[in-house]
């Protein structure tokens, strides 16, 4: 049973995703790190499904669906912002200041 190590791997991948979100300024890369985090969570669910039942895998199914939808919409937003500000650098997207 690979429960423990799988969970640890998931934690590590999640942490790496968090660090990536903090470290990068490019919005698209930010998004990719968020996808990394989602993958880590998927791994957790799958690991537990060995013990707690197929419900875990079903949830992973849904998570993937939602992640795909979210990626589509989010990238559309980045496109729209790019048209306005000619850049995807986070430091230029600060219209909500104040």
């Amino acid at each position: 049973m690979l429960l423990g190590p799988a969970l640890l791997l998931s934690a590590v991948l999640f942490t790496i995703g968090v660090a990536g979100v903090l470290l990068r300024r490019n919005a698209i890369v930010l998004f990719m790190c968020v996808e990394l985090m989602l993958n880590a969570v998927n791994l957790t669910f799958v690991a537990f499904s060995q013990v707690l039942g197929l419900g875990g895998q079903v949830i992973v199914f849904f998570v993937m669906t939602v992640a795909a939808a979210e990626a589509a919409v989010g990238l559309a937003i980045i496109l729209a912002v790019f048209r306005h500000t000619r850049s995807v650098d986070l430091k230029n997207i600060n219209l909500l200041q104040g």
Partner: protein
Amino acid sequence: MTLSLIQAAADAPVPAGAVGWVWLAVALPLVGFLINGWLALTRPAAKTAVSVIGAGVLVAAFAVAAAIFVQLRGHPPEAPLIVELWRWIPSGGLDLRFSFQVDQLSTVMLLVVTGVGSLIHLFSIGYMRSDPGYARYFAYLNLFVAFMLVLVLGANLPVLFVGWEGVGLCSYLLIGFWFQDKANADAGKKAFLMNRIGDFGVLIAMFIIWWTLRSLDFVTIAERAPLRLAAGGAGVTAITLFLFLGCTGKSAQIPLYTWLPDAMAGPTPVSALIHAATMVTAGVYLVARTSTLFAMAPVSSALVAGVGAFTALFAASIGLRQYDIKRVLAYSTISQLGYMFLAVGTGAYVAGVFHLITHAFFKALLFLGAGSVIHALHHAYHATHSHDDAQDMRNMGGLRRYLPWTFALMLIATLAIAGIPPFAGFFSKDEILAAAFGRGESQPIWFLFWGMGVLAALMTAFYMMRLMAMTFLGESRVGAKEREHLHEAPWSMTGPLLGLGVLTVLGGLINLPVFAGGHAALEHWLEPVVAKAQDIMPLAMPHGQTEWLLIGGAVAIAVIGLLLGWKLTLARPILPAREAPPDTGFSLVLFRKYYIDELYDGLIVRPLVAISRFVLWKGVDQGLIDGVGANGSAALARGLGWVGSRLQSGQLGFYIVVFLIGAVWLLRAVAR
């Protein structure tokens, strides 16, 4: 119908007869104030209406007073008759009623206020005729009489205090009547502020009385005080000392007397009514009203007598060297009030009230006479466009040829104030000095008070005769052109003078002592009122030979003073005011009133103003309340807002950091 309304409102039955209508005596002048006030605002030129209403209500009030007097004379009450008007402050243990108290003392005061007041109102019709503020004047004067009557009729201390404050207000309004001149407005302010210091004393005394005796009615206070307070103890002494502080303010004794000479800035009838006959006597009345308390506190009574005697001497000395005719009379008033306080401090309450009455007669006469003189000089100066001071005696002289009636009547008043029998002042002053002398045998310090009173009597005769000499006798210093315009006042003004003259001559009859063939009527009349106090602190009047010696001495001093005043004043020629050389040496000190005003200014007024400006205004108000409070809280809000706005940087990266910090923090609950 109104009477039954009052009966329905009051718990106690209204006394029958004229006494039940005592409220009318207050209501009439009040209505006069309202009507005249309305006329002053809407139709200031309606002088006839104002005259009729203004003087009419006073005469009507006097009629009510006379009716009450007649009724009481027929059935003298043993205890005061209370006429309750309405339930004023029912609060906790205090069930305060707005009630009037009709007894022998308040009836006497009622008669004096309305009687002398009526005469002065009639005089004012002629005196103030050409003044544009005619209606306003009568409105204020009516209001004053209303408040003064509330003061003397009050059955408890708060009602008295309402009248006390009200007369202070009217005094301020009338002193500053010609307020366009800043000096007059300042004089009004000074009077009001010094009175307020005294009022503080009365309030504290009321609080202590309530705390110890649980009642503010005069009747109840007189009953409970001997039972609940230790005679001579701290409680009674404190109460009486604070009450006396109020009296020094209202009745212009040391230390709160400096407002009275400045109050001469008001119209002369005002000086006659308020600052001679009525308002300033309120302090004496208060002591007589609370005589039981003062009798129980020998230390306070001694202080009262001492301050009174010293003030009498002090003020008389200043009067020796004043040149403004009204100022001499003002200091004379302060001095005579000192005599009254000497009387009530000694325990001779009847003598004090007696002197109050006689003083009202002759001092009002003196003031109105001075008003007549000033009126004549104003008229003359107006015709010749002169700018001399119409009140400076150095500009007068020899006026008896031009104003014979005024001269004659003022001479009668001078004799009265000096203490020449059989005029009014002789009997009252003699009784006071005799009482002081009598007490001296058991408490030697009273000999000192008696001595001060005798010396003051000498000075009184001197400065009054000086006044008469400078004004009416000798060579006239009035310019030749002005002399053509000098004439006696119209009968509207001379008439009341005559009335007061008659009262001055006959006033002594009120309390003619037994040795002179009288019945000591006032003494018997006031006996039920002061009996309790007399029991606690009995008088020791001298008898037999001592009595005659004192009387003879008093008359001798009066005559000597008058002669000296006459001769010494006319010994050297007097120059008109604009040419007169300034005084030197001790004369200068007297002329400058011992520099007391300057002393108060430097010691009290300037530090207070400085504290108000720098500490309270700049420091507390601007710095603390505005700066720290209002602006400070705004700055604090702004600062907090700034801190909050720093969080809204718009930087997504920053938001993520904060978010993750929060998330990590929340995980603490789960991760062990």
